[in-house]
């Protein structure tokens, strides 16, 4: 119990230091962009693990809706070349209920990914090359989901300006990031992050021809354990197709005691 308090205290100091750093960014736009991304990442250090449920609503151009529900568990990884591990279990629609996806993310190399197919009782190692493919038929690509590690991108700070509506009174850092990993569907992304809490408020995605493809709005931020920010509402609009996807995160819990064994290939068979 006491050690928990100490960790929380340290984490709070971390958060404070990154806010103090805000006045103190490097001059060079590339260094500044990278420093902002790293500061955002640092605010998340020490979350250990988290669990949450997600409700997804897909809307096509005609306005027809379909829904998805899933549970996601995340394990923080601190290794140099690795990103966080995640386990996603699908609850809805019913024809894929119990299907699970385990991802051991890497920074620049291909992620390790396994899928569990409950009808066959089969665990299958799958190719993670499909980064640009749609996640569950939604407007989110797999790469929009996997860890947003700073090391996956080359960053450039562009400017500071008022945040996108409805947060015009707040200042945002506008940073461009270009994917360094292979097979991305994007040439670049432009990120508006709040200059105070350093959390992203909007991301514009540019396709391989550098045309604006999608815009993601992140709202309903909640702070957990007095430190870790999570946007509970993510709204993606595809400007080309007119399709939209809304993700609503619920029941976030942190430091729930998950360990590596809960993210092992053999744990997939009973994830349900």
């Amino acid at each position, binding site marked *: 119990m006491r050690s928990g308090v100490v960790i929380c205290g340290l984490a709070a100091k971390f958060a404070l230091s990154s806010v103090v750093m805000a006045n103190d960014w490097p001059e060079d736009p590339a260094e500044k962009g990278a420093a902002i991304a790293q500061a955002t990442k640092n605010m998340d250090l020490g979350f250990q693990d988290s669990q949450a449920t997600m409700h997804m609503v*897909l809307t*096509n151009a005609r306005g*027809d809706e*379909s*829904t998805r529900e899933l549970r996601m568990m995340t394990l923080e990884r601190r290794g140099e070349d690795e990103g966080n591990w995640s386990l996603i279990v699908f609850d*809805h*629609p*019913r*024809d*894929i*209920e119990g299907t699970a996806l385990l991802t051991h993310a890497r920074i620049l190399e*291909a992620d*390790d990914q396994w899928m569990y197919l409950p009808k*066959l*009782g*089969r*665990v*299958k*190692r*799958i*190719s993670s*090359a*499909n980064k*640009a*493919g*749609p996640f569950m*038929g939604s407007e989110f690509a797999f790469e929009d989901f996997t860890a947003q590690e700073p090391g996956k991108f080359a960053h450039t700070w562009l400017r500071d300006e008022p945040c996108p509506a409805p947060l015009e009174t707040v200042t945002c850092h506008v940073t461009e990031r270009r994917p360094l990993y*292979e*097979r991305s*569907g994007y040439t670049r992304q432009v990120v508006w992050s709040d200059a105070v809490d350093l959390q992203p408020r909007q991301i514009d995605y540019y396709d391989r021809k550098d045309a604006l493809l999608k815009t993601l709005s992140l709202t309903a931020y909640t702070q957990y354990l007095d430190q870790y920010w999570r946007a509970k509402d993510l709204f993606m609009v595809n400007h080309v197709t007119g399709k939209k996807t809304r993700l609503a995160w619920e029941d976030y819990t942190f430091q729930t*005691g998950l360990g590596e*064994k809960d993210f*092992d*290939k*053999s*744990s997939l*068979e*009973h*994830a*349900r």
Partner: protein
Amino acid sequence: MTGHRAVLLIGSLLAGTCVGAPALAAETEISGSVEFEFRGFFETPSDAQQPETNLSVAFQTTLEISSADRRQNFVVTPYYRWDQHDPNRSHIDLREARYFGAFDGLNLRVGVDKVFWGVTEAVHLVDIINQTDLVENIDGEEKLGQPMVSLGLPTDVGTFEIFWLPYFRERTFEDFEGRPRFNWPVDPDQAFYEDPDKERHQDIAVRWSHYIGEFDIGLAHFEGTGREPLLIPGLDAKARPVLIPFYVQISQTSIDLQATFGSWLYKFEGLSREEYGQSYVQATGGIEYSFYGLFGTAQDLGIVAEYVWDERDELAPTPYNNDGFLGLRWALNDEQSTSVLAGVLADFNTDAWLLRVEAERRLGEMASISLEAQFSGNVPPEDILYSFEDDDFIQLRLTRYY
């Protein structure tokens, strides 16, 4: 709540262990499906008892109780199929009825469950724990629940598992009225065994599986009753010619390997089996490649090419002794998860071929539809697949979930 706790405690008692402090608050969930099936055949059957069209309905319900930390759960899945013509296909099964608990560094499984081993797509050689429920689908992908007690030990050098399989389940076969079926139907009532303990022979399996970077590997050994019967010609009670299943004791060592490099998957399964005074090797392997984002759309196209080999060659009692498989998987990645699978299996010895096409799509939120078709051609009478030569069919399945 007390009811759930009671079941969990029963589960723990079954497991022969004691659940300590971990949160006993449980979550209960019931789900299931009803599936309507229609089969239409293109040709006159070889036996007048066999139908030109067939209707069937399958029911499945799953009751699941999980501890709050989801490290323990209890799952029961009864299954029932009614078939218009084939009394053997009208059958009941417990697909699952098992307790699972993940304790500190040890996974325990007690009850009836499904376990899949292997990596290839066309033929599953290494997969041995569960018996095939052949009346469900002649592709052999459907399995009967297997009674077992298993211990799994995940470590830094892979997962070690041991399975005790105390009761053997016989393969299901179509009756005289079934279609598609063997030209001589199989008579399961006359099934006999090499071992005097018959279905009570205690089978044991062990497996080690691990992954290192791009490589996934599994090594396994099985001692017990072979899941695949030898089929002996004979007569049934009414003196009609039938095939009688003979279950022999086998000893099998297997390996399954997959390497995953970008869009390329390389797969291999091999086994060495001793049975009834002979020993032989079977192997299968191949590649899978996926084109993602076809022509700038969200669609994917996967290609699977595999080869199957049996040391016994022409004498092998399986249709797969020197066969090639070429498959295409087309996923539209739309809201309805529409996908189409097409595969052709060709026998390099006889030039016989078998083509299967499967298309499926979700309907709204709680239903799905699938269309399956099978055609064969060029099959010589000595090939096991000859029985299905005049059984080309199309199958429509509508599934409603609840």
